[in-house]
């Protein structure tokens, strides 16, 4: 025991004794929670997927009508500076949203 602890011995010692086991209750609870939440997500995702197209149509109609309004009003001619400012703001906002999404995404 007094001998110098060699690297291999150290590796074996750590491998053999370094693992911490969670309690049985926790392990069972964890497995149950993972399975339950996974199934809940899958079933709710499947349920909402059926109605996804309705939302897409509504968003498309809203964007199309807004675009039509912009074309009719033609604000670029009357207030070009204001239009560029709003455009710049929207672009910057989108960039920030993308950056935050990337930062908070799982590795």
């Amino acid at each position: 025991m007094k001998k110098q602890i060699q690297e291999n011995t150290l590796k074996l010692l750590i491998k053999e004794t370094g693992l911490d086991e969670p309690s049985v209750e926790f392990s069972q609870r964890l497995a149950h929670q993972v399975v339950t939440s996974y199934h809940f997500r899958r079933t709710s995702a499947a349920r909402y997927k059926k109605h996804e197209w309705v939302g897409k149509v509504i968003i498309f109609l809203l964007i199309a009508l807004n675009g039509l309004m912009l074309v009719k009003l033609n604000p670029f001619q009357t207030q070009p500076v204001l239009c560029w400012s709003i455009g710049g703001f929207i672009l910057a906002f989108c960039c920030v949203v993308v950056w935050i999404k990337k930062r908070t995404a799982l590795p």
Partner: protein
Amino acid sequence: MAKQEPDNEDHYLELATRGNREGLEYLVGAYRSLAYTIAIKILCNREDAEEVVQDAFLKAFAALANFNRAAKFSTWLYRIVYNTALTKRSSRPAASSALDEFTESMLMADNKDGLATLHRADRKKFVDLALSRLRQEDRVIVTLHYIAEKSIAETGAIMGLKSSAVKMRLLRARKQLETGLEQLLTNELNDIR
């Protein structure tokens, strides 16, 4: 810890992605101990470690469909556990450092019970004590490299460090562990005498 066969892992991962209960339970069972070990090495507290493991597993399995298999599932999962544990630790650093000291003092108190031989449980106490004296990052590196048997590159990927930094810290941790264990075992021998 049961070593994972890559084919086996892929098979169960495929099952889990399809929502198969057996696949999900296999993955949880295969990685929970190591995930818990990583969390406890960072937080030094059982309750916090359990909370972190639970959070990390729920996050990982919620995003399982997005797992692109560029890395091993275990590497991906341990990275989530590591990041979740760091976030948890940063939310209450004072409590965690106090618990570090608490753990060490409890272990020291336990070790004074004049032991004739060093059984497995006793060896674990010494290893835990020696590990608790390392820096938090070094402790995780030792755990990932020696216990989880992750390569230097994988350890670096989990912790967001370069391979050279992992190598350097591993060398430093090993030296500290050797010194620490030698010192602890000498003290123990003196106590027995």
